[in-house]
């Protein structure tokens, strides 16, 4: 059972478009992490957010942690085909809980 709900489940967009994916939970987390996973590989950590309301930027990616530390969003500006992959959020409390992921396809 995934206690972190990610939406949308699938997203297919054209190169150059902007997008936002969401990660929501009823639980409070001490930190939240975003990963990207490509087929046949393990997840790769993109960012860790710890403080409620925190915003972190990684080039064209902007991550936000909700004020109550229950939810987060990932915004990608001017998406590129290289952004294609499975985006996973994971919340840390006494263990690490992952969402089911958003599968993003960016078409050239």
């Amino acid at each position: 059972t995934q206690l972190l709900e990610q939406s949308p489940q699938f997203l297919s967009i054209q190169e150059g478009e902007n997008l936002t994916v969401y990660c929501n939970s009823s639980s409070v987390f001490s930190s939240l992490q975003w990963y990207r996973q490509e087929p046949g590989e393990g997840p790769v950590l993109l960012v860790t957010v710890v403080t409620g309301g925190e915003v972190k930027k990684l080039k064209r990616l902007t991550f936000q942690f909700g004020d109550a530390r229950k939810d987060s969003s990932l915004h990608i500006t001017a998406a590129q085909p290289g952004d294609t992959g499975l985006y996973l959020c994971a919340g840390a409390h006494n263990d690490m809980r992952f969402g089911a992921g958003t599968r993003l396809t960016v078409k050239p």
Partner: protein
Amino acid sequence: DAGVTQSPTHLIKTRGQQVTLRCSPKSGHDTVSWYQQALGQGPQFIFQYYEEEERQRGNFPDRFSGHQFPNYSSELNVNALLLGDSALYLCASSSGLAGGFTYEQYFGPGTRLTVT
């Protein structure tokens, strides 16, 4: 600097058998966590090892057990395999403050287990 390595890459077992998967953490890391990722799902936390002891455990039955060695490498053992155990098994390593999950985790490529 080698990252997290796992072996074997792929494994096919028969229902009822036992399996051992292996993980070597990233250099400098002392904490190893194991995850099960079913097709189309996110990883599910199995357990975490630090200082050769199981520190945290997810909602997995006792058929799943592990071990951490003095060199920080780790094994995951699954007994009495079920068809539902077919999944990608991921190992992640981290360091700092007796493990935990606040600090960066680095994942290995995983072991694809198929139970027939």
